[in-house]
């Protein structure tokens, strides 16, 4: 493809936060009037790449050229004046101010007296929005309109800055189907104006619908650049996850071993579950003594499904049965009483109480059972804490050490112990080994296996395909909020699971 110089070229970009590299020799090229998909898992470096480009963060090394000239934006505002606008996932406009004010924010038209010329601005805003076929009362507060309209206004604002490149960070995550259609139409109009678009999304179908080319990132590097047409969905998923399609048999990268499998009767059964915008039709089941893997791409609705089972968010449709009985949890406390434990993927914000000790974090849920007349039985508490510290090998200077001082792996062990000391029937683990070093990871995987062998039912969400494939006795795959496939025993292998993540069931790569 012998086209002219790309409009944007980022080459050899390095960026570290502290000692942790976020970008390693990453690159991105976008041509004029082109829609470029930018995809990758959590922590792949997409957001950092965007931040480096729009001046939010400073790069450590590398070159960026725009239209052949070196690019040196040091703030998103400066990038905007230079022709690169970013539409963030959470729209960064002011909901209480009018549409007009939002469009003209920071470059208001003034009369000769230095007062705001509202009339001129309103006319300008109307004209601008008409270009996108949007007809709204520009005097109304922005917040009164739907998310899609707000996004259009943000895009219109970007274009009115003479944007030559618009970056959209997961623009469809809060839109419904018709709204997505409107957004795509807008993107096509941008394309017709020779404006380039960088489109970040996890929904593969959307990428094929609007994007020309795709850049795949993984672990801070750019691992593939291709036209959309030259890459199948399966190839996209495999590249994102870093799995070689030819490598069919696994080498045993995780610490899950084939345990003595004594799988019991059904413990949890979820039928036709719908939760908010993210989950529309999910069904799964967990039996005693088995690890059930829940696979899917980011945004497929895995966490939302887990939270609904745990009573942490309401579900609109479907049934959740625990031991054959329909549950009616209105809060996690109800689920806990019924024998369910849940470890969130966000340890820091939804797991630990940072200022409290290991002892208190470990017994947080058990506390009512550890007390008589509301008074904590401290000797029993201490006994239990010491037992679990020893049994699952939590490394801490003493039970009184603050949990925030522990490593990620040890924090996770404390959180696991928080549930294990309750003797649960079912444990829901959302990304149990995320952000944990290799050694501790293997220990936690071994522990999960052992718990299942002892009769616990485990529902495990993981973005690491080998963790799902090697760790699970059965695997369910969610894709865009729908359960698309179930694999059992020997049928669990990476190509099959990745295929289901990419296409849904039945389709062949």
């Amino acid at each position, binding site marked *: 493809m012998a086209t002219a110089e790309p409009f944007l070229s980022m080459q050899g970009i390095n960026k570290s936060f502290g000692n942790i590299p976020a970008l390693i020799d990453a690159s991105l090229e976008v041509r004029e009037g082109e829609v470029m998909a930018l995809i990758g898992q959590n922590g792949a470096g997409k957001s950092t790449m965007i931040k480096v480009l729009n001046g939010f963060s400073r790069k450590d090394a590398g070159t960026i050229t725009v239209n052949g000239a070196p690019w040196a934006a040091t703030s998103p505002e400066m990038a905007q004046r230079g022709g690169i606008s970013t539409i963030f996932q959470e729209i960064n406009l002011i909901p209480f101010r009018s549409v007009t004010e939002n469009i003209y924010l920071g470059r208001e038209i003034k009369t000769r007296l230095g007062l705001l010329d509202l009339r001129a601005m309103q006319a300008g805003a109307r004209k601008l929005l008409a270009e996108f076929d949007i007809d709204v009362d520009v005097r109304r507060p922005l917040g009164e309109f739907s998310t899609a309209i707000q996004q259009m206004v943000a895009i219109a604002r970007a274009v009115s800055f003479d944007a030559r490149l618009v970056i959209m960070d997961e623009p469809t995550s809060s839109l419904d189907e018709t709204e997505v259609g409107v957004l795509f139409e807008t993107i096509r109009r941008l394309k017709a104006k020779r404006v380039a678009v960088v489109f970040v999304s996890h929904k593969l179908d959307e990428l094929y619908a609007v994007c020309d080319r795709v850049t795949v990132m993984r672990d801070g590097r750019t691992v593939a650049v291709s036209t959309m047409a030259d890459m199948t969905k399966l190839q996209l998923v495999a590249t994102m996850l870093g799995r070689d399609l030819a490598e069919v048999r696994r080498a045993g990268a995780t610490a899950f071993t084939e345990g003595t499998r004594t799988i019991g009767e059904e413990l949890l059964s979820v039928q036709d579950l719908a939760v908010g915008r993210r989950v529309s039709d999910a069904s799964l089941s967990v039996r005693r003594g088995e690890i059930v893997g829940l696979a899917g791409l980011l945004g497929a609705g895995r966490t939302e499904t887990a939270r609904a089972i745990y009573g942490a968010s309401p579900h609109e449709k479907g049934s959740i049965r625990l031991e054959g009985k329909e549950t009616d949890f209105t*809060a*996690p*406390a109800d689920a806990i009483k019924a024998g369910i434990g849940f470890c969130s993927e966000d340890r820091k914000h939804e797991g630990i109480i940072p*200022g409290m000790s290991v002892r208190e974090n470990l017994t947080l849920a058990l506390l009512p059972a550890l007390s008589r007349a509301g008074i*904590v039985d401290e*000797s029993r508490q*201490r006994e239990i804490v010491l037992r679990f510290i020893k049994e699952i090998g939590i490394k801490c200077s*003493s039970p009184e050490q603050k949990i925030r001082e522990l490593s990620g792996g040890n924090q996770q062990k404390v959180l696991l112990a928080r549930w294990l000391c309750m003797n649960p029937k079912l444990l829901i683990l959302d990304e149990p080994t995320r952000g944990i070093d290799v050694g501790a990871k293997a220990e936690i995987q071994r522990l999960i296996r052992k718990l299942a062998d002892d009769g616990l039912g485990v529902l495990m969400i993981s973005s690491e395909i080998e963790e799902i494939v090697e760790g699970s006795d059965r695997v369910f795959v969610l894709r865009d909020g729908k359960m698309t496939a179930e694999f059992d025993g020997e049928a669990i292998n990476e190509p099959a699971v990745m295929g289901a993540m990419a296409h849904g069931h039945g389709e062949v790569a």
Partner: protein
Amino acid sequence: MSSTTQNAPSPVPGSVGSRPRGGIAAVLSRRHIGTIAALVALLIFNFIFTPHFATMQTLSVNLTQVCVIVIVGVGMTMVIATGGIDLSVGSIMAIAGAFAPQIFQGTLFPVPNLYTGIALAIVLSITVAGFFGLFNGWLVSSFRVQPIIATLILYIAGRGIAQVWTNGDLQVFKVPEFQQIAIGRVFGVPFQVWIMLALVLIAAWALQRTVFGRQVLAVGGNEQAAWLAGIPVRRVKRRVYVISGVCSGIAGLIVIAMNSAADANLIGMGIELDVIAAVAVGGTLLSGGRATIIGTLLGALIIQLVRYTLLANGVPDAAALVVKAGLIVLAVWLQRQDRA
């Protein structure tokens, strides 16, 4: 504590010297050292420079000055421990203070005799105060109103209720039997000081040793995590505001007993800021999750003692306010050092 004869858990390697501190040691934990040092320094300064400092009279004056602030501070510390704040304490004091004399004087409804009247006055006034606290807690927990706004409602309306209730009149009374709760003495120490000490010790113990106390701190430390761990976050929040209301009610009764008059316009006026200052100086984190009742007591004592020192040595009250502000700045700075 009840768990006396349980077999001590066999010692586990690596656990040496890490027992949770018990008794007084737990109550006066290491983080109070700075506060205590400041208090001791102030005392030494006064023993040397302030005339007539080492007298029972001075002690009584200072303790009674600090009593009301500490009693309200007990409830406030609980509220702040959950990450909230209660601005309505002064107004709730006024409500309880305006309500009680009407009961023991028999103007509201006939009472058989004075002692029944006093008992009813105390119980009913504090109950009413508790219900106003419940209203605060209800707004905060069920409607997720920001605590500062939710309690601002009663801050404004509460005093109005007390004024309307009494027609804005000053109620003067002479009922020594009732006034014992403030001015009666036990072992030479005013009865209100004993009330304060009892409340402080009970609350400090409850915060450390009861499920409720630990849940209060867990909610303040990380509300989302606490909720996911099954802690009844809403109930915990509701309760701390009730406790704050009850403490304010008690404080309101002590104020009218001291003055032998109830003036709805003045009872507890501006006390919320003094109380919050005492809580902050004492070392409780205003963002929640770390709280110390003993610290609040010490904080209130320090503020009072500084004020007394300056006054007794001829510095005007206006200047003392500036010093008080300086103390708060210092306390906040110390907290930041601690967190880093």
